[in-house]
């Protein structure tokens, strides 16, 4: 397949759809590819109201933002290839995909926007392979998309926003959250989220971790243990909690395989989830014509992912001559202003500092 001026967006989550919409708005031909059977990424299981300001759609539930993005995608006649896995990216931006697990297709893109998202981290402990130990994101998919309770008595490991939001949604779905266990002496998530589950009677165990999960063929209980100042378990402080499900909310890791394959240069930034493709303020990587947006460029949240997607879409389209330079600069700055508004305060500033480091590396490399 040969296309002139084609932008291929890989990943139909908040970042990818936002990128596709911005590019299609100015007349770019865009194909969005996603391996799942439905577009929207993780938005459709985010049943809570988002933070931010009006421009960030604050107060709107993630699921509604997903619907709005799909409506815009349809209105702009953006082609979306679902059930399609990207298997390779060649030097000349030739993309090899498998459609519906049977048809091999290659297509030549002029610009590629990688918006592949992230995968949940697992932690290991005796019993971690027992049925009933699940990722918090998986539990969230089960309750909010499949409408199935993973269990009735849940232990959540990790008190970051994912851990506390999914705990709240498990309560809404009718489960009991027996404990939220946090290895650090301080809780990680926003105070308004922790307060919400706290007033629902859920106890937090700070400076604790899971020592083992007990059960023959499934989770029957979990043993937690207190940690000392050096994160070492204190013998004699073990406590057994009767649970049938253990959810792991222990961070995310960017899905960067395609960026590695494409030859992008990387830099290690632990605060943002690990090895990240180096990129500039236009979200372009060290490989010309390949852009990144969303969790692949650093673990954040849907609101920032959408803004990064817009940056990539605007700048990808501009480099095809579809946006005048003055207009590109103006639009790019507007998005950066909104990103800066999200990346400040006691939580956001750390992410802004880390992102600034990544941008600084780009200047050295290029």
């Amino acid at each position: 397949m040969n296309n002139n001026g084609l932008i291929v967006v890989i990943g139909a989550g908040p970042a990818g759809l936002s990128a596709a919409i911005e590019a299609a708005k100015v007349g770019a031909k865009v194909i969005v590819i996603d391996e799942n059977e439905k577009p929207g990424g993780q938005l459709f299981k985010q049943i809570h109201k988002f933070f931010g300001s009006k421009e960030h759609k604050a107060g709107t539930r993630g699921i509604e933002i997903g619907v709005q993005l799909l409506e815009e995608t349809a209105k702009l006649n953006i082609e979306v290839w679902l059930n399609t896995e990207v298997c390779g990216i060649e030097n000349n931006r030739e993309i090899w995909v498998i459609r519906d697990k049977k048809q091999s297709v290659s297509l030549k893109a002029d610009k590629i926007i990688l918006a592949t998202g992230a995968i949940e981290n697992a932690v290991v402990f005796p019993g971690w392979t027992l049925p009933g130990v699940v990722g918090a994101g998986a539990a969230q998919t089960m309750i909010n998309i499949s409408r199935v309770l993973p269990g009735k008595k849940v232990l959540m490991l990790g008190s970051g926003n994912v851990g506390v939001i999914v705990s709240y949604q498990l309560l809404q779905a009718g489960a009991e959250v027996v404990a939220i266990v946090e290895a650090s002496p301080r809780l990680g998530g926003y105070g308004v989220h922790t307060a919400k589950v706290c007033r629902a009677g859920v106890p937090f165990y700070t400076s604790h971790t899971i020592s083992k999960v007990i059960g023959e063929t499934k989770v029957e209980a979990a043993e937690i243990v207190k940690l000392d100042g050096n994160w070492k378990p204190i013998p004699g402080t073990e406590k057994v909690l009767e649970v049938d499900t253990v959810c792991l909310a222990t961070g995310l890791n960017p899905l960067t395989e395609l960026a590695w394959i494409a030859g992008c240069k990387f830099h290690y930034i632990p605060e943002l989830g690990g090895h990240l493709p180096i990129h500039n303020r236009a979200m372009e990587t060290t490989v010309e014509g390949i852009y990144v947006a969303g969790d692949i460029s650093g673990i954040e949240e849907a609101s920032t992912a959408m803004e990064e997607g817009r940056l990539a879409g605007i700048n990808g389209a501009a480099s095809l001559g579809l946006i005048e330079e003055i207009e590109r600069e103006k639009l790019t700055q507007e998005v950066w202003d909104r990103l800066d508004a999200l990346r400040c305060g006691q939580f956001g500033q750390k992410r802004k500092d880390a992102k600034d480091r990544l941008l600084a590396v780009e200047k050295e490399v290029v």
Partner: protein
Amino acid sequence: MEKQYLKTIGSPSLEELKNSPAFPTEEDYKKGPIAVIECIEEIPCNPCETSCFKGAIVVGKPITNLPQIDFQKCVGCGICVAACPGLAIYIKDYTYAEEEALISFPYEYLPLPKVGDIVTLAGRRGEEICEGKVTKINNTKVNNHTVVLSVSFPKNNFLEVITMKRL
């Protein structure tokens, strides 16, 4: 220790709340129904400000500022309660009746109680405090599925009560 309540126990202590710019004083409570905002961490969020018709709530720029509230302007209308994505706002009325106060708080669980039901009210750590009587269930479209329940309860538990036990 007391100051670190929010980051260790999960909910703010009264001391932490009283040190935040939006928390009402005893004087403020005497004027009638007012919004109580329990938002003491700088997160990027301002729907409380933009939802308020009276201009009583100010976050300003940057949007990570803690909300401030002018109790001379706040009439306790409750529009901010369902607008707050953090479910961190409720309306309290100390002047509701001789012996009773009224709280209107956000509630996103099913089943819902009915008007007239006696429910168990709870505090910030989920502890049971007292019983109360449901006087109103506000589930209008603008709330977007965040139901606001109004419950009357004995005044002597005024500061502790912030929600109800799930049914």
